[in-house]
């Protein structure tokens, strides 16, 4: 695998994660528990889809086969997608959406901080841009996690359920394969597995403040690096891609 091929894969991972999570959050449009949160979740969605465009655009450049952002988003099947498994998990209730956001945003805060120092200028710039936005998303989801975890008996129960439902997808964040090793060697990518200790420390601290415990026994579901997904991704793609597949090449 060449550096260029590895960068292409790397951009897909980041771009696919933000696109799928952005699509998930957009499902809240018109369904938020209160107007302000409807606006918040869709604003976060907008940031994420914007980030996707930056990473897809760069992926298309390094691939150099004439594919466009739209081709990547609308004409790939689930096994070609490289998004983190966490991103495709269903919204559940508001608490579950918030907890999923907390987990991904806290991971991406560390990830983009490290990637900001990449010796690939484009990746570094995209990471710096995304980091500012992800920081804001993290503050928002952390505040809600604290409020719900320390809120009523019902809100705390729902947050505990969210932890049980989602924790198993966190190990998938830190896996590394040849793509990571090649790019780490070249000073382009980051040491992903090295983020795990800091992330766990941060997540555990904040969850504790919210009265939430990390499950003692939890098995890990992983495989996003190889395009192995949970059943949910196919359903999202079916909805997201239907218009483009019915009308190939449709534009606004």
């Amino acid at each position, binding site marked *: 695998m060449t550096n260029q091929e590895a960068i292409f894969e790397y951009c897909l991972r980041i771009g696919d994660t933000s696109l799928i999570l952005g699509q998930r959050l957009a499902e809240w449009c018109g369904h938020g528990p209160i107007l*302000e*949160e409807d*606006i*918040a979740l869709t*604003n*976060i*969605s*907008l*940031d*994420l*889809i*914007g*980030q996707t*465009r*930056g990473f897809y655009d760069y992926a298309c450049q390094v691939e150099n086969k004439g594919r466009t952002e739209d081709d990547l988003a609308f004409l790939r099947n689930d096994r070609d997608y490289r998004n983190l498994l966490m991103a495709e998990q269903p919204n559940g209730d508001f608490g579950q959406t918030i907890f999923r956001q907390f987990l991904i945003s806290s991971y991406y805060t560390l990830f983009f901080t490290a990637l900001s120092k990449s010796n690939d*200028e*484009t990746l*570094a*710039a*995209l990471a*710096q*841009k*995304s980091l*500012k*936005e992800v*920081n*804001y998303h993290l*503050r*928002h989801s952390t*505040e809600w996690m604290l409020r719900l975890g320390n809120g009523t008996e019902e809100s705390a129960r729902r947050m505990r359920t969210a932890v049980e439902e989602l924790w198993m997808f966190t190990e998938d964040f830190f896996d590394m394969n040849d793509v990571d090793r090649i790019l780490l060697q070249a000073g382009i990518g980051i040491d992903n597995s090295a983020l795990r200790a800091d992330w766990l420390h941060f997540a555990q601290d904040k969850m504790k403040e919210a009265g939430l415990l990390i499950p003692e026994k939890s098995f890990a579901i992983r495989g996003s690096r190889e395009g192995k997904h949970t059943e949910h991704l196919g359903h999202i793609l079916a909805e997201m891609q239907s218009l483009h597949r019915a009308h190939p090449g449709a534009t606004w």
Partner: protein
Amino acid sequence: MADKIIDTIHQLLSTIPDPEIPVISIVELGIVRDVQLSDDGAVTVLITPTYSGCPAMMAIEQEIKSTLHEHGFENTTVKLVYSPVWTTDWIPDEAKEKLRKYGIAPPAHSTSDKSVLSLHPRSVACPRCGSLKTTMISPFGSTACKSLYKCDTCLEPFDYFKCH
């Protein structure tokens, strides 16, 4: 000669209002990063997005092309750049005053002030009555760059242009 043409282009660009906040120009907002002129007269305008998903970027690109075209620059390319990362620190004081008069509270701090790391920055003044007794209603607002506040003195709700 080339410098003079670039100056003219800058002037033209500073007449283009931001599509979402029409009281300030895309130059004042810091979106326009550079203007380049090649020997054959082709113009390249470098712009940077405020937020990654800002839906106004496409409108801004179109507006730049049509404004320059009207003034005889027929070969214009608009290029998106991400570095250096856009910050509200680039908005000059006069533009902040225009925002305030328009009813949007301008960014209250420099981003080097770490209090902005909180979702609830201190002392956002009401753009209408100037009171510092204000409360955030929502960290997210009508556009990606704003959050929602209300004034506890004059009771008016207002937009706050977030420090970013």
